[in-house]
């Protein structure tokens, strides 16, 4: 008799289960139907890197120190510093005068990098570069919807990306074709 009652209560558990699924069947769905809708909590998401813009549009805060490239566990960053500009004749004279006096000439090369090569296919989004930057020049975008067709789509030149964002057309052929369009 006890076994029969046990069997009945066991079978009732099946009905309870059906009740649960029936309840969810009648509730609205939680799916976000991409690409017509997107999720709304990407502010804190670690998407790919970008250079933080300084007061001058199109120019980042980066001073080409290379701390990020050294700290990166995946060796995905390469910072290409600018070469010193060719001095004009007046500047050359001023330099010679300063050397004659024994002063150390001031380095006039601009600090910001010429190229900031970022290989996103190697990046592990750990944040070590961002945390160790002395001027806070790196930040993560929230771009969760980045997509491309080739590997080169993910080789960014972040300086170029920053220029494209600011609307300044750069004539740099090494920038990745999809680089400028991915910012969200």
């Amino acid at each position: 008799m006890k076994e029969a009652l046990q069997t009945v209560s066991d079978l009732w558990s099946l009905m309870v289960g059906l009740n649960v699924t029936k309840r969810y069947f009648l509730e609205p769905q939680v799916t976000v139907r991409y690409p017509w809708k997107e999720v709304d909590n990407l502010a804190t998401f670690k998407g790919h890197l970008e250079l933080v813009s300084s007061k001058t549009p199109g120019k980042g805060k980066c001073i080409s120190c290379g701390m990020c490239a050294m700290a990166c566990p995946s060796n995905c960053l390469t910072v290409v510093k600018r070469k010193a500009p060719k001095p004009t004749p007046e500047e050359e004279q001023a330099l010679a005068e300063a050397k004659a006096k024994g002063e150390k000439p001031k380095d006039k090369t601009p600090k910001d990098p010429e190229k900031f090569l970022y290989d996103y296919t190697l990046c592990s989004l750990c944040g070590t570069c961002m945390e160790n930057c002395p001027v806070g020049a790196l930040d993560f975008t929230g771009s969760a919807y980045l997509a491309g067709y080739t590997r080169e789509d993910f080789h960014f030149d972040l300086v170029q990306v920053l220029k494209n964002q600011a609307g300044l057309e750069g004539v740099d052929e090494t920038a990745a074709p999809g680089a400028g369009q991915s910012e969200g």
Partner: protein
Amino acid sequence: MNAIPAELLHIVIGLVAVAASVGLIGLVMVWVERKVAGHIQRRPGPFEVGPSGVLQPLCDALKLVGKQLFMPLGADPILFWLAPVLAFLPVLLLFLPLPVGDGLQALDINLGLLLILAFSGLAVLSVLLAGWASNNKYGLLGAARGVAQSVAYEIPLLLSVLSVSFVAGSLNLATVVEGQGTWPWNWNIMTQPLAFLIYSVSAFGETNRAPFDLPEAESELTAGFHTEYSGMGFGLFFLAEYANMVVVCAVATALFLGGWHGPVLPGPVWFVLKVSALMLLMVFARWTFPRVRFDQLLNINWKWLLPLAVANLLLTAFFVKLAQFA
């Protein structure tokens, strides 16, 4: 030219209608299953192709048809390609004795139920052939399980169906339906509730639907007996499964739920509604319950369903005889 016999014409029209409706049922059921599964799981299911995804099954069918048909190395070609055909073709026959409306029966035959039960046994053969001819260990295991399961669950199915036909006095489904009334309290489920329960469980076992879907257990045996089938071979098995589901639900409506009886609406509409309700229940059961383990599955059959079905049959026979004397 001799006149074509009316009977033959009747059957041919019926067959054509059945073939068309089986195709349609396959498409509709695929859509229903995926949508219901989606909504249970709080996701939309197909929604891209066509409004609310109704054209999705059509695209799936086209995809299946367009796939390359190939056989694994070492498989027996005749048996390999015979199996899906054998799974699908007999199912068309199963639809013929079903009474869709008052007088609307493709084949008015006194042995309707026997026809259905006999031809549904051919599905067992197709499972076995599929598993054996695949030259695949997983397929073989799946086929062995499938055969054991199908053969086992046929018996309580038969016995519960027999109980109802004892009361009605005929194996013709139309007669059984006519013996029931318009309202639920006049249906056979009131007089034979135990038979209904046994029939339901056996129906799940016969059609290999969850929770008894071990022969095609995806996560344990990588799709069991139809592992090696792709393209239309798989499509035929798929269609056969859905068509079998419909037959089993239709027989349940005819036997227990009053067939085409119902107030206000015409007969066929009620029939379709009742069959759809039962199909919905089967779909819900698939997406709610985990799989029953194989030996437990057979245990349920031999230790619970069979004794209960026999007891039910004996009791029914006793009361029928008693009623005859009264």
